[in-house]
């Protein structure tokens, strides 16, 4: 087992014995990603303050996805990982999407009074004159 060189940088010999095989690694990509993350945070902060309306959420989520992709690929070394680990990560995201999609689709397409838009009308427990007025809220 060889020691690192005097400069503190790993020597060639070390690379060969690195547990992940022989590939050079340097800290520069980490710093680059960090700068990118800072940039995106600033971007999402600035656009978020504008309250852009319809597109605000889409934009914020796009930025968040980009940021998390950077973290996953570089910080979490998914870029250099085996196909299996990538598959695990991707699969978990697919199933998150599945849960979200169907549940929201249900809420979005229900019998209208079943999902009171905006205002919930309480049960009688919280609102004694509930049912007997026979008002079906819109």
């Amino acid at each position, binding site marked *: *087992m060889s*020691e*690192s060189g005097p400069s*503190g*940088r*790993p020597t060639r010999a*070390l690379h060969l*014995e*690195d*547990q*992940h095989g022989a590939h050079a*690694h*340097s*800290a520069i990509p*980490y*710093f680059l*990603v*960090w700068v990118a*993350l*800072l940039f995106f*945070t600033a971007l*999402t*902060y600035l656009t*978020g*303050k504008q309250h852009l309306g319809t597109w*605000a*959420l889409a934009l*914020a*989520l796009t*930025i*968040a996805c980009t940021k*998390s992709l950077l*973290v*996953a690929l*570089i*910080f*979490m*070394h998914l870029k250099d*990982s*085996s196909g*299996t*680990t990538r598959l*695990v*990560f991707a699969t*978990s*995201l697919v*199933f*998150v999407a599945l*849960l*979200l999609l169907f*549940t*929201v689709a249900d*809420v*979005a397409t229900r019998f209208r009074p079943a*999902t*009171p*838009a*905006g*205002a*919930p009308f309480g049960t009688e427990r919280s609102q004694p004159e509930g049912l007997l007025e026979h008002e079906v809220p819109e």
Partner: protein
Amino acid sequence: MSHEASAGAGARLPPGILAHHFSSLSRQNEAMQLGMWLFLATEILLFAGLFTGYSVYRFQFPEAFAACSRHLELSLGTVNTLVLITSSLTVALSIHYARSDRPRAAAVCLVLTLLFALTFLGIKFVEYSAHFHEKSLPGKYYAFEEVKIPGAAMFFSLYFLMTGLHGLHVVAGMSVLSWLLWRTLQGRYSSAYYTGLELGGLYWHLVDLVWIFLYPLLYLI
């Protein structure tokens, strides 16, 4: 997973680090990596439940969610985002240094990470106490004067659940990192073997990943 890795870990791969049932160290590392990622997948789906709840109620109460979100302290949230991102960097660097046989640098990075984590929790504490003060609390405790639209209490229920669960993960991550710091100081991690550190780092990055989504959803919409 990490304790599996660190069980018999030694600086220069002494006997015992390789469990008897694995044919080679690289096989064992592969197994641990895969195991950790599977664990992270369960964590992602754990939060998915809350994200689903968030989506459903945001769909039902868009005005209330927007109004409440504007009452959160955006600057604190942003600072916390920066803090977590930077802590992610320091964890990544600590692995890098351990891998380059610079255990002292790795330890320094881990200490920095822990400090960032503490900062994060501190800021979160400031935010929480503000919420307690103005009574923007979840569910039945909600008595915030400024937002009185239906659905506001729901926003804060979700806010506390999501940030609370995330906070618990931060605490769990800190204990893992402290353990790793101790092992690093003992000189257990080197270019020959650093899987334990790597797995702990993965966990910390996941904590960061979750926050990257919580930040826009809670503070920015």
